[in-house]
C-alpha cells in the first residue's frame, strides 16, 4: 500500500512521541508541469527515514538533507527546485516544472 497523507501525518506524530526530531516538508507552490500538487508532503525524522513525496523522486534526497538541518536548527526553510537548478547535488525536476517546498520542524 502507498502511504496516504493521513498515514504520513500520523507517522510524524508517532516519531515525535518516540522522542525523535521530525520535520515536515510540504509543496506550497508549483509552476509548469510539476509532479505533485501543492499540499503534498514528506515527513522526515532525524535518522533520515522519510515517508510520502514532494516530487516523483527527483528532489526527495535534497529535501531530506535540508530537513535534517531544519531539525537541528528549528528554523523553517523555503526550498525551490527547478529544472535549471544547480545545487550541490545537481537535483532538479526532469519534467521541466518548478516547485517550492516549505520545510518546518515539528515543535513539541
Amino acid at each position, binding site marked *: 500500500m502507498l502511504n496516504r497523507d493521513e498515514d504520513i501525518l500520523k507517522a510524524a506524530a508517532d516519531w515525535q512521541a518516540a522522542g525523535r526530531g521530525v520535520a*515536515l516538508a510540504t509543496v506550497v507552490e508549483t509552476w509548469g508541469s510539476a509532479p505533485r500538487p501543492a499540499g503534498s508532503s514528506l515527513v522526515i525524522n532525524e535518522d533520515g527515514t522519510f515517508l510520502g513525496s514532494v516530487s516523483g523522486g527527483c528532489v526527495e534526497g535534497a529535501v531530506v538533507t535540508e530537513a535534517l538541518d531544519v531539525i537541528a536548527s528549528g528554523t523553517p526553510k523555503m526550498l525551490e527546485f527547478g529544472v535549471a537548478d544547480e545545487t550541490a547535488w545537481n537535483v532538479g525536476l526532469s519534467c521541466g516544472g518548478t516547485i517550492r517546498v*516549505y520545510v*518546518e520542524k*515539528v515543535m513539541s
Partner: protein
Amino acid sequence: MKLQTLALLNAERAARRAVVVVTDVASGEQRLVKAAEIASDPLHAALAKQLRMGKSAMIEADGHRLFLNVHAPTARLVIIGAVHISQALAPMARALDYDVTVIDPRTAFASPERFPDVPLIAEWPEVALPPLNVDAYTAFVAVTHDPKIDDPALLHAFERACFYIGALGSRKTHAKRGERLKAMGASDADIARIRAPIGLNIGAVSPSEIAVSIMAEITATLRMPKDLTA
C-alpha cells in the same frame, strides 16, 4: 508545526472532518482552521474557496504570503451489493486510496471468502448505513440490481450529499427506478444525480472492466472541473 497542531490535525482527519492549516511562510506562524469555523474566520472567502476546490494554495493577505493547506477527509467508497463487479471494484478502489465498505444483506454474497480484507457488512442498508456517517467525501455505488436493497440505500446517499452516486442498470431499468424513488419521496434533482447506466462508456463487458469504468467515472467526478463531468 507545533505538536499540538499536528495532533489536532490528525484527530480531525480521523473524524473525517476537513481542516485548513494556514502558514505564514515568512514568519512560520501557523494556525489550524476547522471546517466548521471557516464562516467566522477573517480569511473565510479564501478558505471556503480552497476547501470547495479541495486544493491547497498560496495566497496574499494584508501583505503576508500565506499557504492554505487543505486537508479534506480521505475519499470513501460505499458499495451496496457484494456482487461479482464489487469483487473487482473493492480492491481497485483500495489501490486508489479509498476507504471501502461493502454492504449486502445476502450472506451468501457478503462472505469474507469473496471479499478478503474488505470491511463487509451483511445487513440491510437501513441498518448498515446510519452508523457509517456517509458524507460528501463518499462515493456511493448501488449494484445489487435488487430494488429492495438498492432503493433505500440510494435515498440515504441523496440525504448525505455523496459526491458521486451511481447505480447499475440499463436506461429502461433506471427509468423505472426513478419512478419508484420519486414515489418514495426523492426529488427530480436527487434522481438526476444518479449516474446510470453506471460508469464511463468504455465498452466494458467483464466485471473487472465495469469496475474500471466505475472507478474512472468516480475519479472524473472527484477531479475534473465541475462543468466538464456532466
